[in-house]
């Protein structure tokens, strides 16, 4: 038996190109459906785990998927904006804790996430170095942002203009980095967190400027009528918040009318969540409430349906490949008829010759399957990082 296996090995080694092609084909055709299954499964877990950890999302009526992707992964276009009054409305129901989000602005390739400190507790995020933001203009970086940009507490990052052609738009805001979060392996690692009010500063809604009563601001005063001062465009507005000018930053009116992109609502219990959802059922309701898990499952349902088609196609290809491999082996037998005759003439029994040929086929099949298994293990092991890089990158 050992001799037979040795001869089989020598044959395969001698025809190494043919063997390599056969093993490669079998490896790929075995791995592709299994690997795809693993990748899709991991992607589904990656997407749903964050969605399932987020009980309810409230935003302006529009695409639920856009609201979910923007609020959970800080990706996709900014959904239709709502106002801070939506968070106040949820708070006043006493049914849930609202965590407002304003995900609209970016610094380079990273989303600037305006929120409240409750977000960090809700997501279980810890500040690994430095501290949490305390005043306007301070920011806390996700671990990947800090690593990619090579910045940490004491450095600054600058918000990007929404459009390079928006010459009359808001000035970029230079933000002080005061902390870096520990890695969470979620979208939070790729975000820059600021207080909600800082995003309004970026937008220019909350701003600081020269004291209009001060003599040095005289050139910026267009007209002065009693207690009313009208300023011209030359009034100096600050694009960096420092201890010296922070006191000049102010709101115009209450916060209720200021924009946000959505609100995470964390119900106090399941019943509260159900009641809260009922509050958004009215026909004239201008806001929507969604369960992110449901939205993501709908999305995944589509992805999984596509996966079924792909796997079916791959199985057809596998059958075709196996048939081709069988044909290769059969043709190979025909080409090796003289070799088989020679083995028979020098005393090889039919059993020995059959065992030799079967050993060769089994070795090729086994090598293909083992390699496919190895690739599957590697995919399972490192696929999540790959998926995070692809999904969150």
């Amino acid at each position, binding site marked *: 038996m050992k001799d037979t296996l040795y001869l089989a090995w020598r044959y395969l080694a001698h025809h190494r190109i043919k063997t390599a092609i056969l093993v490669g084909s079998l490896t790929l055709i*075995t791995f592709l459906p*299994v690997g795809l299954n*693993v990748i899709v*499964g*991991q992607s589904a877990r990656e997407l749903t*785990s*964050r969605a399932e*950890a987020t*009980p309810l999302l409230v935003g302006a009526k529009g695409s639920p998927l856009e609201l979910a992707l923007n609020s959970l992964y800080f990706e996709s276009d900014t959904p239709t904006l709502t106002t801070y009054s939506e968070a106040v409305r949820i*708070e006043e129901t006493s049914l849930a*804790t609202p965590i407002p989000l304003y995900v609209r602005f970016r610094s380079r390739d990273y989303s600037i996430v305006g929120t*409240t*400190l*409750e977000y960090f*507790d*809700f*997501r*279980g995020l810890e500040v690994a170095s430095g501290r*949490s*933001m*305390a*005043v*306007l203009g*301070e920011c806390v970086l996700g671990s990947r942002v800090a690593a990619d940009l090579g910045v940490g507490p004491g450095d600054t990052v600058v918000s990007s203009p929404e459009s390079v052609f928006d010459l009359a738009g808001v000035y970029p805001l230079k933000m002080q980095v*005061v902390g870096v979060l520990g890695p*969470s*392996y*979620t979208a939070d690692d790729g975000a820059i967190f600021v*207080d909600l*009010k800082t995003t309004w500063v970026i937008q*220019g809604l909350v701003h600081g*400027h020269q004291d*209009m*009563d001060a003599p040095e601001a005289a050139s*910026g005063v267009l007209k002065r009528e009693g*207690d*009313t*001062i*009208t*300023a*011209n*465009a030359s*009034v100096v507005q600050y694009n960096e918040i420092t*201890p010296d000018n*922070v*006191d000049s*930053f*102010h*709101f*115009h*009116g209450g916060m209720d009318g200021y924009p946000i992109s959505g609100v995470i609502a964390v119900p106090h219990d399941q019943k509260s969540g159900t009641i809260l959802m009922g509050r958004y059922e009215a026909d004239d309701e201008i806001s929507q409430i969604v369960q992110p898990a449901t939205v993501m499952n709908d999305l995944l349902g589509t992805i999984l349906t596509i996966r079924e088609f792909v796997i079916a196609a791959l199985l057809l290809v*596998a059958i075709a490949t196996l048939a081709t491999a069988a044909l290769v082996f059969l043709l190979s037998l025909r080409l090796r008829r003289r070799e088989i005759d020679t083995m028979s003439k020098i005393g090889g029994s039919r059993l020995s010759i059959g065992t030799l040929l079967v050993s060769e086929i089994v070795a090729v*099949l086994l090598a293909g*399957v083992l390699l*496919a*298994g190895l690739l*599957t*293990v590697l995919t*399972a*092991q490192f696929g999540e990082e790959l998926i995070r890089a692809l999904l969150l990158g």
Partner: protein
Amino acid sequence: MKSRLYLPILAMFLIASGCAESGPPGEESQGTQDSGSQVLEPLSIFTTNYPLAYFAERIGGGEVEVSFPAPGDVDPAYWAPDPEVIADYQQADLILLNGAGYEKWLERASLPASKLVDTSVAVASSYIPLDQGVVHTHGPEGEHSHKGWVFTTWLDPMIAIAQAQAIQEALSAARPEAAADFRVAFEGLQADLLVLDAQLGEVGADFGDRPVLFSHPVYQYLDEHLGLNGKSVHWEPGDMPTEEMWNELSTLLQSHPAELMIWEGEPLEAVKSRLAGLGLQTVVYNPCGNAPESGDFGSVMLQNLANLEAAVEPEAADTDG
């Protein structure tokens, strides 16, 4: 045949996916609350002025650890904590706010909204608007001003009671098991404030509608609650007013002939004697926005009452005579 081929792969996949099943740390527990910790440490309470700290200590007793981090020599209404102090505020279980625009720094700070307790919001309809504030216009948002409210709300004992009640309710919500104790302590504080209110009411009644001056525009709630006929100037106890300010006072006295001027602190002797020359008696009514050097909020308010009574009684006696 095909299913047999997949068996080893499936086994490897299951092992691998089993290994990879453990998600990122903390992900599973998100959105839930830790119900395991039953050790009742005192609630960490941060306040933005001294009256709130006093109320919280009176109501919370041993169940609370109250911090009021403003330095002793500043008016907390014009104080802004630095980022490190704000970080301390962030760690508190509850942050008690006076409201009515008292905490001007609040809109520039990052504090957890769920921990903020605006103690005067329930009586917001009683807020007295400030009559100062420049309206200005720039940019697309149009005309706006930086007006606000008078914020020394606690000088009206009834508003102070409402603020104390808000504290009691917040403490009870944060620690329901001590709610009964908080209730009892609140009722004690409420009784003290009601006694103060009754005695102040008597002083106010004795004073009638005779004109009175306030050295600083912080007494509006007291003025309104007691029905006094008061007007404010903008003088500091430790400063000698300029001649322009004296002239303005003389002009004001012509239309508002006050004989009593209420101060936040003891004015300079030179100021007192010059005021006496104008027929103005000075009396100290300490708003007690910051912690007093001696005593507490209760004793300071009783001293204020005694000062007012001492100032009013001779005049009342004269009127009676």
